[in-house]
């Protein structure tokens, strides 16, 4: 068009790129985003990763113990926990997508400094517990290969710290993720172990309850390891970081649901495996060698090695994510400078907090003669006890119409989420009373 007008001067011709546009219009345009299954598959990200990270050292130990000690009796808890986890992960994803803000951000804006300090304290304690558990897992995995903890842990802690601050953690993260996929072997082992499927079904769909502190202890540990506060916080952060908005949040919901179901299918497989192999012979899980036995149907004499590889990968994955995510949340809430690219001087709180978590994790895990399995389960009990605190904050945020608008919780979502919080609180109170207070009066439950 423009060309025509400028033709009067024969020596000078200027064409700015294309010929008339209409002539070149060819639809369809392949790069335009369309719906469909592949979009859903592409969205499978944060949910799956955070759920994989949920099935780590303490999770595997807890699930193994549950199966070994109570057979299929506690499987019903997994069914309910899966439902709760789906609702909780979905709420976290929704809060992130609608507000574009992280959990710590929202708590600070809606509840003020003091409640934020409380929530962050709870989260730091819970996450410090899990970080310790991860290092215990790393140490135990390497001990299965014959490397003593007092040698492996300082080295691993330093490498991890270095990778996070100076290196490219994302690349190694994929390696850890790949290693942890060996736990998929539990699915195969479950079938090879030939469990009594009738008993499996009964255990899953008919709840049984015992007023026995040891039973409640493992019950809380199971809930604690399935519904970890940091998973919700991490899910919300990744939804925000991925730039998910109210418009495309349906994909994240799918991701959250899929992750929750998948993580708990593995968990159930672990319980079924140990219930079928360890429970009949009355063997309890006291260390990682015992836990590894459940993979014997699939790997025979190599069960230990297979288990160690998976344990190492899963524990490394979580040991990297947790300290950074914790420090990130705390700094987000209080407005401190954050990010691994800042030096200690520029971001003192962020750097000291995440370094401290790694050091504490490794230092505790290195203590000689640690009762490994009981310690791992204890961290999950702690988690289970603290989880309702974070869940209540989340529920108050997600029911706040001023920030969530029409995306606030529906009645059904509340009917699942509130009882989850209340039941865990009641169980926690019962456990505290039965283990701490009743013995003072000479009353002992069970045992």
């Amino acid at each position, binding site marked *: 068009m423009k060309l025509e007008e400028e*033709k009067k*001067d024969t*020596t*000078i*011709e*200027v*064409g*700015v*790129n*294309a*010929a008339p*546009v*209409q002539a*070149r*219009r*060819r*639809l369809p*345009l*392949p*790069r*335009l*985003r*369309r*719906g469909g299954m592949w979009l859903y598959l592409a969205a499978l990200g944060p949910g799956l990763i955070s759920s994989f990270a949920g099935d780590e050292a303490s999770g595997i130990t807890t699930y193994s113990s549950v199966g070994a000690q109570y057979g299929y009796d506690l499987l019903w808890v997994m069914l309910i926990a899966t439902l709760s986890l789906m609702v909780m992960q979905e709420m976290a994803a929704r809060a992130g997508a609608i*507000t*574009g*803000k*992280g959990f710590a951000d929202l708590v*600070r*804006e809606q509840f*003020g*400094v*003091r409640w934020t*300090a409380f929530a962050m304290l709870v989260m730091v304690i819970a996450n410090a517990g899990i970080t310790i558990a991860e290092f215990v897992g790393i140490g135990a995995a390497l001990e299965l290969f014959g490397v003593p903890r007092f040698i492996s842990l300082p080295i691993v802690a330093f490498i991890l710290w270095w990778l*996070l601050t100076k290196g*490219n*953690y*994302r690349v190694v*993260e994929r390696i850890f993720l790949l290693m942890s996929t060996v736990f998929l072997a539990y699915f195969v082992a479950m079938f090879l172990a030939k469990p009594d499927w009738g008993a499996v079904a009964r255990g899953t769909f008919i709840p049984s309850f015992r007023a026995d502190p040891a039973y409640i202890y493992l019950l809380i540990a199971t809930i604690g390891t399935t519904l970890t506060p940091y998973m919700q916080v991490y899910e919300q*952060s*990744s939804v*925000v*970081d*991925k*730039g998910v*908005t109210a*418009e495309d949040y349906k994909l994240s919901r799918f991701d959250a649901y899929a992750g929750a179901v998948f993580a708990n299918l593995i968990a159930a497989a672990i319980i079924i495996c140990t219930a079928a192999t360890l429970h009949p012979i009355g063997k309890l899980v006291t260390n990682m060698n015992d836990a590894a036995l459940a993979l014997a149907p699939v790997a025979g004499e190599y069960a230990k090695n297979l288990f160690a590889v998976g344990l190492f990968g899963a524990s490394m994955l979580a040991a*990297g*994510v947790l300290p*950074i*995510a914790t420090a*990130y949340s705390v700094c987000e809430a*209080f*407005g*401190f400078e954050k*990010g*691994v*690219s800042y030096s200690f001087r520029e971001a003192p709180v962020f750097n000291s907090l995440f370094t401290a978590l790694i050091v504490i994790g490794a230092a505790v895990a290195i203590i000689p003669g640690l009762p490994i399995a009981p310690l791992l389960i204890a961290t999950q009990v702690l988690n289970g006890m603290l989880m309702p605190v974070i869940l209540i904050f989340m529920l108050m945020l997600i029911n706040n119409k*001023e*920030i969530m608008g029409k995306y606030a919780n529906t009645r059904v979502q509340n009917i699942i989420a509130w009882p989850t919080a209340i039941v865990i609180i009641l169980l926690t109170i019962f456990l505290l009373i039965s283990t701490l207070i009743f013995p003072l009066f000479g009353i002992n439950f069970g045992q």
Partner: protein
Amino acid sequence: MEAKPEQFKPNLASASYVSLLLGKPVRDAQGATIARLRDIVVRLNVGAGAGGYPPLHGLVVRGDVDDEQVNFFVPSSAIAALLPEGEQAGVNLSSEELSRKPFVRREDEMLLAKDLIDKRVIDLANRKVERVNDALIGPHGSHFHLVAVEVGSGGLFRRLHAETLGRAFHARDEILDWQQVDFFASGASGVKLNLSHARTAQMDPVELADLLEEVSYKEGAEIISALDDETAAETLEELPTSRQSDIMALLEAERAADILEEMSPDEATDLIADLDEGRAENLLNLMDADEAGEVRDLLEYGEHTAGGMMTTDYITVPQQTLVRAVVPTIRAELEQFYEVYYLYVVESAGSEKLVGIVTMRDLLLAAPDLPLSEVMERDFEYAKPDDSERDAARKIADYNLLALPVLDARGNIVGNVTVDDALEVFMPGKWRRRRGSLREEL
């Protein structure tokens, strides 16, 4: 904004921390406690008189009305004194009659506790996003104004009632004059606050983009809509594509289309490709036909190919053109484009067949009366639209080029890949921007 005659310089020494006042008793003229302070209301957009410091409009207090606890409003005219500290700490009222009707918010009323404290603001002087720990109100004549916010760790410890602990950590107050602060209307729910963001809009696009990466996409959209089209486009270009499309999705379609027209075609294409199809088609239809056409052309190429990364901002000149005639003719196009690296010489007028390339250096050194065909480099590197972006980027690196033409099967030029786009292919994610997100840290 500059009110010359009565320039108001707040005296911070006589200002009080809002956090100290909140929750304190509110007493009537006889000294009897009638309520407790819930919030402090200031008015925005009141004109030049206050020098931009929002005046105190009144208080929200909670007290007994007909044996029921209600939040009601106390107009600023009824306030006799604000005492943040000491035994008499609280609010003393004059004898003015109070209506005690339940409090209802109105447009342009900001509640300091609800809308400002604990929220994020932009520190205009340091170009940073800060978390507000406290607000300060100070007297000016007979009236109180919001004069500053506190963003340091000192305020944090004070609100936790842990000043002693704070001193151990060398916690300090960091006070930002209100003139140096911009905040987000989207933080205030249920009421409309009209903010111009005029001072934020004066920042340069790179600084704006840094800020926008730290706030939510809703707050980002609020800032972007306050910018002129050109600045908005440049700012968006500095942001990651997913952030761009989130913000775009919140803008009015007409406005979004205007901004897209100002963006370079390759950036606009990436953005549109990230939107959902309906919105994308809608925006393409609203855009100027030429610009939309370029984007539609670019959308035909795969994302990680030379075609997907190229831009259609380039200049072609017929080979018969004389050197001295080049600059006057391409002046209009030069004004449109930010960077022009090479002139692409085509066979003849109206043709797109590329026969040579002229660098800006060659053009400046060449004898004015020569035609471009005598000056141009006939032996040049190029990419095909389906080449991978890595191959195209590698060619730019290997041959030290500033740009690489992209030719279709017939040798016609369809676009060009510039060195900055090539750089992005090779640069590790962490380097692109320092202020990352949690996901980038891991």
